[in-house]
């Protein structure tokens, strides 16, 4: 189907017969502002990028358009927010459709930008002249999460109210300024009309504006670095961007749009009862992409789960392109064939190990009871931390010996272990925890 659609586009939409002599269409002119005229043929291959960056950009455009239309019918006050959305769903033609499209695209944007991050990381496309763009990418990832999070509150239903309550409460565990930071984000001890207005303003004004700036920088730095990162070869073969790349981009865009529209026919964005600050639903969960953090907080002392671990990870992700690597193969997936094997093994190990450890901690290992005489930062802090860190360290050392790899692959394996652990915790919290946040098995 992919091939057929590409063929169709090439034949009927773009005139490819005499590229040198003809006038460019406006789509083509726009494409030539983003891309150079010719491009390495290896950069056009679909599984070099999976089109993920482009998908994110398109989702942002969909979100901007649907968001602007939704703004016409939304009222950002505690009294009327919920009713305005019920009204939109029931009385406006295609109102529910628009809202579901916005909701689905937003969730897809979180997933697509994370996959895009994984793609650039594992295809070794973040080093040297691309390092700066990795930082811009992290800023964009933060903006995606911030937009999604601020948008989460706006329906002012039970789901929105309690998810945001739970997540802002996580900030309270940061020592010294945590309480005032949480109060600043909520503009009060609990969520109130100020919170709603602030979130609305951020969601529909400040954050989209920042997006436009940072996406612009992100695109420009890709061009400046010479496009997609590719392994070095002696002779490169250049092909014209029109039609080779453009056809693929338009194909991906059309497939995405068609898929989204089709999905929204069968799916509607959730809307529970109006928010009730006196009734917490059981269980109450943070927005799904933050559930890994909530899961961590169930098992490990807040000093570790809310401060040390997130702080360390943030620094690690900022520093990752600037570390001292011995054998960089820029543009080579997983740096080497051994790297690929090690990453796959690390991912499998991390998934089963994290899953098993959480099961044990929930059902058998009650350190808070056993070590109740020692302070809690030892019994539920250092002890579970070592219980995780020692086996992971041993596994990584085993991998290092077995595959005889350099530090590039080892850092990649460590990152994989951390990311898969987070995803495992997220999935457990999302799918396997029922009433009282107890495991359902």
């Amino acid at each position: 189907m992919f091939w057929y659609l590409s063929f169709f586009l090439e034949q009927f939409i773009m005139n490819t017969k005499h590229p040198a002599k003809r006038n460019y269409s406006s789509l083509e002119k726009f494409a030539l502002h983003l891309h150079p005229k010719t491009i390495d043929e290896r950069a056009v291959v679909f599984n070099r990028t999976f089109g993920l960056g482009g998908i994110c950009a398109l989702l942002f455009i969909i979100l901007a358009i649907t968001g602007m239309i939704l703004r016409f019918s939304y009222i950002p006050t505690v009294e009327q927010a919920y009713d305005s959305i019920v009204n939109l769903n029931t009385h406006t033609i295609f109102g529910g459709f628009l809202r579901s499209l916005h909701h689905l695209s937003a969730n897809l944007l979180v997933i697509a930008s994370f996959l895009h991050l994984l793609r650039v990381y594992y295809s070794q496309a973040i080093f040297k002249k691309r390092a700066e763009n990795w930082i811009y990418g992290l800023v964009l990832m933060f903006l995606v999460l911030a937009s999604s999070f601020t948008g989460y509150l706006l329906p002012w239903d039970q789901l929105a109210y309690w998810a945001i309550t739970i997540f802002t409460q996580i900030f309270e565990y940061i020592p010294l300024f945590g309480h005032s930071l949480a109060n600043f984000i909520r503009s009060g001890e609990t969520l109130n009309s100020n919170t709603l207005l602030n979130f609305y303003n951020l969601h529909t004004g400040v954050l989209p504006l920042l997006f436009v700036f940072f996406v612009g920088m992100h695109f420009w730095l890709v061009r400046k670095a010479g496009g997609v990162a590719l392994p070095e070869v002696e002779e490169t073969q250049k092909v014209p961007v029109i039609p080779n790349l453009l056809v693929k981009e338009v194909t991906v865009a059309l497939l995405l749009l068609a898929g989204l529209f089709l999905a929204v026919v069968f799916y509607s964005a959730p809307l529970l009862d109006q928010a009730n600050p006196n009734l917490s639903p059981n269980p109450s969960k943070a927005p799904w992409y933050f559930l890994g953090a909530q899961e961590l907080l169930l098992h490990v002392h807040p000093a570790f789960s809310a401060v040390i671990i997130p702080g360390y990870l943030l620094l690690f992700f900022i520093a990752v392109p600037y570390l001292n690597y011995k054998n960089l193969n820029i543009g080579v997936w997983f740096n080497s064939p051994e790297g690929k094997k090690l990453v796959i093994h690390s991912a499998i190990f991390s998934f089963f190990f994290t899953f098993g450890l959480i099961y044990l901690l929930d059902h058998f290992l009650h350190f808070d009871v056993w070590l109740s005489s020692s302070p809690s930062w030892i019994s539920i802090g250092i002890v579970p931390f070592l219980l995780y860190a020692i086996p992971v360290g041993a596994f990584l050392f085993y991998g290092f010996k077995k595959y005889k790899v350099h530090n590039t692959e080892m850092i990649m394996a460590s990152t994989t272990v951390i990311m898969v652990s987070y995803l495992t915790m997220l999935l457990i919290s999302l799918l396997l925890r029922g009433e009282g946040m107890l495991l359902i098995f």
Partner: protein
Amino acid sequence: MKFDRRRFIKRLLVAIASVEALFLIKGGITNKARLSEDKKLIRVGKSDSYEKNQVYPFLSHHFYLKRFEDGGFMALSIKCTHLGCVINHNTKTGGFNCPCHASQFSPKGEVISSPATRPLDYYPMTIKNGELYVDTSVVKRRKSFLKSQLTYV
């Protein structure tokens, strides 16, 4: 760097404007609809209308009013210290349970069962003309239960 009057004035103006912008934004975020102090002082009535060893919910004002065996009063916040859910009163134990993540608190608000790590917060109380008032504008945090946290008539 040599002293440059124009540059100095320019930077001074930018600095003053930035400070003003910062205050405007901060004020806008936090002070939009600040309630007057009176509104946050909740009158709960005469002390003899409350029985000893009983819990009275004032959910719309976000506290449980507890009267202890010795006649002392305490206004406990309904917000679980783990992740901010609303706790329920457990009529069997006299304590409080969190429906979200199963934390349990004693009648005094101390943690009996994790994941919560600190006791329930409380609101200070005052007595005017024999009537009890709860000041909900400040929430007090504590490490453990102390007799001084109670209010006596």
